[in-house]
């Protein structure tokens, strides 16, 4: 990963007063670092930078995504979030230059989260993957998995590669389950396909059993996960929903099967094609059997 810096877009976004503050506090931290003034500045960012998105062009965003190695929607990040990310990036640079010890660096990032309000915690969580050796911050993510504040949880779970990069299987699965449970879109979880595992599919099936028994709705993007799985339990369920009464689920199954190259369900799909009345689903099914 090349060294990533948001300094120039921040300068573009900042007023003269904000930029003067930004420069001044940078010199202070470089000269004589201590934790509490850094935490204060991490909060005070909101006084100097706006809540509106930084407004990258698509080519700028792409450039940042290439440097970051992940398709993170930086163009939608607020000026405040970008500024806080840059503060943490600078903190890691200070650590590289031995202005502060590794321990103090880690402690400072953790304190930004620990003392942070909801938006500050989100900024920390979404910045983590850009920091060197980011797996040292796993404990913050584990804390977030237990939060009830959904905006903070989605800060970890959605459009953030940190869970896929750093969490073990059990914790990653917990992120996915909680997202599912809270009606968070699964498509926003990065690395879902790469981190697919049999336990996750099992957990999803148990949850679906429960929902079916209670006759409660099941999100139709659940097939985003199950269509990556080939266990007998998954095959049974896909076959059942493929010809089920719920057209949204039939669409979900067809949509995500079409994204895989699985040939497991050819017979059922051909049978379903004969009776499928919904044109959109029909078209998807046709594409699967005759690619």
């Amino acid at each position, binding site marked *: 990963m090349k060294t990533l810096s948001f300094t120039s877009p921040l300068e573009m976004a900042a007023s003269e007063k904000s930029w003067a503050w930004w420069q001044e506090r940078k010199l202070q931290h470089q000269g004589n670092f201590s934790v*509490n003034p850094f*935490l*204060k500045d991490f*909060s*005070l960012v*909101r*006084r100097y930078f706006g*809540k*509106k*998105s930084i407004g990258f062009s698509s080519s700028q965003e792409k450039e940042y995504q290439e440097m970051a190695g992940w398709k993170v*929607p930086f163009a*939608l*990040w*607020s000026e405040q979030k970008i500024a806080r990310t840059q503060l943490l990036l600078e903190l890691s640079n200070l650590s590289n230059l031995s202005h502060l010890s590794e321990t103090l660096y880690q402690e400072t990032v953790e304190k930004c989260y620990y*003392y942070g*309000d*909801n*938006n*500050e*915690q*989100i900024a920390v969580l979404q910045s983590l993957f850009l920091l060197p050796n980011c797996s040292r911050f796993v404990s913050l993510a584990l804390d977030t998995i237990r939060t*009830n*504040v*959904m*905006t*903070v949880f*989605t*800060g970890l779970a*959605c*459009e953030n590669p940190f869970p896929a990069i750093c969490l073990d299987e059990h914790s990653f699965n917990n992120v996915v389950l909680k997202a599912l449970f*809270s*009606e*968070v*879109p*699964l*498509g*926003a*979880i990065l690395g879902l396909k790469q981190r697919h595992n049999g336990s996750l599919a099992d957990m999803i099936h148990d949850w679906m059993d429960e929902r079916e028994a209670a006759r409660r709705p099941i*999100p*139709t*993007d659940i*097939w985003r996960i199950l269509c990556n799985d080939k266990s007998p339990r998954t095959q049974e369920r896909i076959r059942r929903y493929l010809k089920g009464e719920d057209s*949204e689920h039939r*669409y*979900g199954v067809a*949509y995500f099967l079409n994204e895989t190259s699985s040939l497991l369900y050819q017979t059922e799909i051909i049978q379903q094609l004969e009776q499928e009345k919904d044109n959109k689903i029909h078209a998807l099914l046709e594409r699967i059997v005759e690619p």
Partner: protein
Amino acid sequence: MKIFDPHIHMTARTTDDYVAMAQAGIVAVCEPAFWLGQPRTHVGTYEDYLKTIIGWERFRASQFGVHHFCTIALNPREANNSKIAQGVMELLPLYLHKESVLGIGEIGFDDMTADEEKYLRLQLELAKEHSLPVIVHTPHRNKKKGTERSIAIMKEVGNQEELVVIDHNTEETLPIVLEQTNCWAGHTIYPQTKMSRNRMVGLVQKYGVERILINSSADWGVSDPLNSIKTIQLMREASISEKQIETLFWDNPVQFYLPSGNLDLKEIQTPPQIDQRKFWEGNSVLRGQTPLVETNQEESE
């Protein structure tokens, strides 16, 4: 009309209360830090309480369409608890700059002890240092003396009086606040103690609306989070104008808290989006193909 309750302890209230408040037009609330009905025995529990009013309670309120803000402080009762008082004072600067913190409060006298005075003074100094609004609680017993003493200390510390509310006034203390200071005068409508709705109508008829704040302060005791609304009804019956009512229940609280720098006037004009997840619906299969979370935050911030 929109209502801003400038002093209400929502952590003690139920979700039904939030629903009723939002329906009645309460768009924003400020929750001052106070005690929990029994004394805390650790600084850590106090810190978690501060985290709660800054974090979880703000989110909880947003789920019901209410903007939640807070003020943080060592409250008068627990100022007497030497085991935690100093530790809480050390925590305050770490949370003072958070997005939803509108100032320092509630501080002041309860039993009029030396410790209460010490921490009242220290926190007035903290408010002065950061130019923040501050809520000064006045005692239930010995209210007049407590109010006079609080004002005297505030004048010694030299706080900008427009940033101070002397709270929980009665017929005896209101004229003191209005005549001797430029502070705001707060009134807490309680079913049985403090100030009643009818008496409040009388005070507004006598003293007008300038520098007057009214709150329901509802907490874990016998209290009613809709007291502000019920007082408005009585005011209408007493022919107090809509303009004056709006000044009392919206303009004044907004004007009082505005110097905190944390009130976004445009943002509080409308209630927060009730269920943020609704942005993710629409295309139930494809949801999440675009980075919806962030869009969602931008909309709600």
